[in-house]
């Protein structure tokens, strides 16, 4: 207020901002990056704690005894799976019925927009089998879900065996207050999507499924189990869901608490907890864990079968058994006891999990960074855009054009519309024109889609830049800056990781691009920092962090498959990353490109 009332000081501040604009922007950028990297430093993070009282103090005991029998059931399941060559529906129905569950099936068909080469599927037909354990004296208003996928090959047989074993054991207990639904889903996420849409009677992505006949009311929480070996060395917790949604932190806390209690090694992002945060390697370990989480979250795809539950406000996570070369092994009985304990605590819930955080990053299982701590990192990047806007408004010589007359707002419509039309083409054409592409070029449908997308993306760079003769670059730049600020701000609120990564690459070029910079150099930098290239770097960094580094050529192939997966995720599950990039971020980048090639 003092600043506003005193014209001298106000002028001084404006002068400061104008004069030192570029250095301040650079400082902000570096501070944002430093802040972000500091989030992984242990003294700066909070220790996780159980917020939900119903799960914290209540003592539960675990007595699940039948791990061996569960493994035998798993082997039986594997044999039947091999015999039928897919989901052994009849066997599962019979087995679940003999365990005292109410059993129902759901069949679904799904035609993918183009063949999925990673999983080798195009026209998917399948059946989900689920059994409901009715809680005594409960009125079908609340339910918990335990799922295990029926995967191809020999994967996850133990998970189905353990699921059936737990069903049998849970059925003979009296303390259940919520119905428990045991679901074996076929074709992983496609089956899960069909089941969830059937359960909630929605149809967001145009799948074809038969209606469900048995329900258990509103689902409070869900766990997906993936287990492919008889003994495991550690359990990995997967949290990232569709569009970067995360389950309530209490679910992760619950898992960690039981791992501690029962003595099972637990990991997140496949990385163990380390205690040497003072050392460089300790810090880099937690930084890597956090970076992996950021990259996974930014991808917006479900990283386990649980990922689709989050849309329905059902807290869900995937628990994945990992068998490495470590000496210490955990048997199935122990995993069964762990799950029993978790379900008993979830059963004690009076309300939905809501006490703890929904927005967080985890540098390790015991540490978390809440939204209040990580948002400033993004804020420091976003403020650069606003600083540049204020700079251009106060210092009109910045772009070298004296503003003698203001052209109408309409005049900037031409470049804006053209860039957005390119975005629409990038969004629609790859899938629509795949048939034509396959006829004319010797490629498969998947390659056709991906290569069309890349072609349109590249062609956008060559669009005419002289159509907007009456526009001033200043106006265009201001519009582009504000547009980008709004876009990134909204993205970061929904999916922080995606917003932050995009801000890292787009903010520098948005801030410093003018028609007067050195054209070839600037053009090269712009292309290198374009959304497409950012995606490529993310793929390479992700592989590096996962300790499976790839060569540049493999990286390129991976990049192509990531694009096709992104398009598939969008059309199958409604992931928003592809439309966001194609329809909004890419046109925004094209606007900046226009400014660079101003004549």
């Amino acid at each position, binding site marked *: 207020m003092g600043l506003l*009332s005193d014209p001298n000081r106000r002028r001084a501040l404006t002068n400061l901002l104008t004069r030192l604009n570029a250095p301040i922007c650079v400082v902000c950028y570096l501070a944002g990056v430093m802040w972000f990297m500091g989030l992984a430093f242990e003294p700066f993070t909070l220790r996780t704690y159980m917020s939900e009282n119903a799960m914290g103090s209540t003592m539960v005991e675990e007595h699940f005894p039948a791990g061996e029998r569960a493994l035998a059931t798993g082997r039986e399941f594997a044999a039947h799976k091999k015999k039928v060559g897919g989901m052994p529906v009849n066997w599962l129905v019979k087995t679940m*019925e003999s365990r005292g569950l*109410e059993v129902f099936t759901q069949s679904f068909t799904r035609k993918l927009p183009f063949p999925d080469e990673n999983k080798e599927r195009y026209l998917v037909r399948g059946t989900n089998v689920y059994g409901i354990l009715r809680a005594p*004296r409960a009125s079908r208003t609340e339910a918990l879900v335990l799922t295990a996928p029926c995967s191809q090959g020999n994967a996850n047989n133990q998970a189905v065996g353990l699921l059936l074993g737990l069903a049998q054991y849970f059925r003979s207990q009296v303390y259940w207050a919520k119905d428990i639904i045991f679901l074996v889903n076929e074709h992983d996420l496609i089956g899960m999507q069909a089941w969830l849409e059937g359960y909630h009677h929605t149809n967001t992505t145009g799948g074809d499924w038969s209606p469900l006949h048995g329900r258990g009311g509103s689902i409070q929480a869900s766990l997906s189990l993936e287990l492919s070996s008889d003994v495991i060395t550690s359990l990995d917790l997967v949290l990232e869901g569709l569009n970067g949604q995360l389950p309530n932190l209490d679910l992760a806390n619950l898992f960690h608490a039981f791992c501690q209690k029962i003595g099972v090694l637990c990991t997140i992002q496949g990385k163990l907890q380390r205690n040497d945060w003072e050392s460089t390697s300790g810090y880099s370990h937690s930084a890597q864990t956090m970076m992996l989480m950021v990259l996974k979250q930014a991808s917006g795809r479900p990283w386990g079968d649980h990922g689709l539950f989050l849309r329905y406000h059902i807290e869900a996570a995937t628990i994945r058994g990992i068998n490495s070369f470590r000496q210490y092994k955990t048997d199935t009985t122990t995993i069964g006891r762990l799950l029993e304990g978790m379900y008993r605590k979830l059963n004690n819930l009076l309300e939905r999990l809501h006490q703890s955080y929904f927005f967080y990053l985890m540098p390790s299982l015991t540490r978390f960074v809440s939204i209040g701590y990580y948002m400033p990192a993004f804020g420091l990047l976003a403020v650069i855009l606003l600083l540049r806007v204020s700079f251009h408004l106060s210092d009109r010589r910045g772009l070298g054009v004296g503003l003698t007359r203001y052209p109408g707002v309409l005049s900037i419509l031409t470049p804006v519309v053209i860039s957005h039309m390119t975005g629409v083409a990038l969004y629609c054409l790859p899938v629509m024109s795949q048939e034509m592409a396959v006829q004319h070029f010797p490629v498969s449908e998947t390659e056709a889609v991906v290569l069309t997308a890349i072609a349109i993306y590249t062609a956008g760079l060559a669009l005419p830049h002289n159509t907007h003769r009456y526009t001033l670059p200043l106006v265009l730049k201001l519009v582009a800056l504000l547009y980008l600020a709004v876009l990134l701000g909204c993205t970061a609120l929904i999916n922080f990781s995606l917003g932050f990564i995009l801000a890292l690459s787009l903010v520098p070029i948005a801030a410093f691009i003018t028609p007067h910079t050195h054209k070839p150099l600037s053009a090269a930098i712009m292309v290198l920092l374009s959304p497409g290239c950012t995606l490529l770097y993310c793929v390479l960094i992700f592989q590096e962090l996962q300790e499976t580094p790839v060569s540049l050529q493999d990286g390129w192939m991976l990049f192509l498959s990531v694009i096709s997966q992104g398009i598939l995720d969008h059309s199958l599950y409604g992931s928003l990353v592809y439309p966001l990039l194609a329809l909004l971020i890419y046109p925004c980048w094209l606007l900046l490109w226009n400014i660079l090639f101003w004549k």
Partner: protein
Amino acid sequence: TAICQSITQLMMWYANNAKYFPPPSTAKDQFQEELVIKPLHSGDIYASFQFRTQWDTDFLLGSKVSHYRLFPKSLGQVISKFSVRELHISFTQGYWRTMQWGQPFLPSPPGAELWVWFQDTVTDVDLAWKELTNVLSGIFCASLNFIDSTNTVQPSASFKPLGVGNVTDQRFLRYAVLPREIVCTENLTPWKKLLPCGSKAGLAVLMKSEKLFHSSFHSQALHIRPVCKDWQCKSTSWELRQTLNVVFDLHTSGQGKREWSLFKMFSRTLTEACPLASSSKVYVDITDNPQLFELSPATPLVSQAVVLGDGRTYSVYDLTDHATFGQTHSLNVLLRWRAAEREMLRPLLHGERYVAGYGLQTGEIHTLVYNNHPYRAFPVLLLDTVPWYLRLYIHTLTVTSKGRDNKPSYIHYQPSKDRLQPHLLEMLIQLPPNSVTEVTVQFERALLKWTEYTPDPNHGFYVGSSVISALVPSVVAMDTNNTQERPLFSSFFPCKEESTYFMRIYTEPLLVNLPTPDFSMPYNVICLTCTVVAVGYGSLYNLLTRTFQVEEPSQGLAKRLANIIRRLRGVPLLT
């Protein structure tokens, strides 16, 4: 006309219904008790107690009654004080699983249900209803005092009087359901105290609460209605029926052994009948006997009855006969299973309900009504009571059967008023044979005032069960080929009582999440508001009250030093 026919048919049923009661004997008051044990297909076991007290008095004619024998005084006073004509109250913990257990003898929705017909002499029905619910709340130790105008409705067709009399003006009817009510021993004890023998003798000794509540389903109910005193029906008497239905679970209490006995179910055996009872019997449903289970001790008494449109055979143990107890002086009925069928039943009429959609803004209530009869269509009355905070979009109401629009022949809709009255939707729908009829209606979730949320708002809010009332074609009429047990001459024309029977089923209640504020937010808001007030208001106040003065620009330090030196030297000062 089809509408009128169906409704009159239903009403006729209600009216006729009163005359099928067993003839009362000449004694003034009467008490009968019975227990029906029905082994269920799923391997579970269903035990249904029924106690009937008949009271030959008519205090509505003006005479003040102060002498009570078998009829509980607390209820008699309630009837006379509030001029109640009929009273039906049920407390249920659990949901009846029609697909596994078939139909119950007396259906009831989860939670507490209360419906009352008042005499037409009552002038202020709402007031009487309010007081009555509070009194009943005290009698049964239940939260019936939560019944207020926001969950009370007056159904136009679904709940008709079950006793004699022909007043059917819905103004004298009140119906309310509390789906969240939890039933426990504290409700059972006062219920038991209403029995003439208490839980000291007779069948009631079996009611040990730790066993009754160690079950899959528990329901206790109480029905009061006027019935004919004799065949001429010149005067009426009061009938009080107390029922208790329990289903015991095979898996959790059977411990794997497939056998049941009275002792195992109730941890008691029977030693005597209630001395006040004129009849005291235990029935065991043996219709499927030789294949399914064996029964001991054997009893020569067999009774046949048509229950819910199905002819059933029962073994009867008469507790008033000393021979029943044998040498051990106790009766412990034992059932040993031979085989259990696990497949689900296909009950003729079956209902389901769920909330569709996601997000906290809108949603859709789906009600599915199954007619599994292979060739007969029949009408059902569907009653939906939805609290006001789910704002129904009634224009989105659709009724479809077999993929085609099914226009209800009668719709009674009473819109809700915020914080005053719930939605009431009653429809008469014709169910085509072998079909699923789907009723959908969209709703919007209201944002409540912050004091209106329950203490655990993130648990969700309950919507009571829908009530489906129907005259269902009987199974007896359905399999006319089955003549092995009945004489041929009896089975050509299906006789009227057996051709249709009345059935009421309840769907599951719904749990709906409303948009809920973060209740720790007030703290944050207070902090934020205080900061804003302190900084913003302070500065603004400062700006508004400050007096501005033109100030001489102060000289720089260098200049001031220079001026001091100049003054010393006597040279003109710098400005």
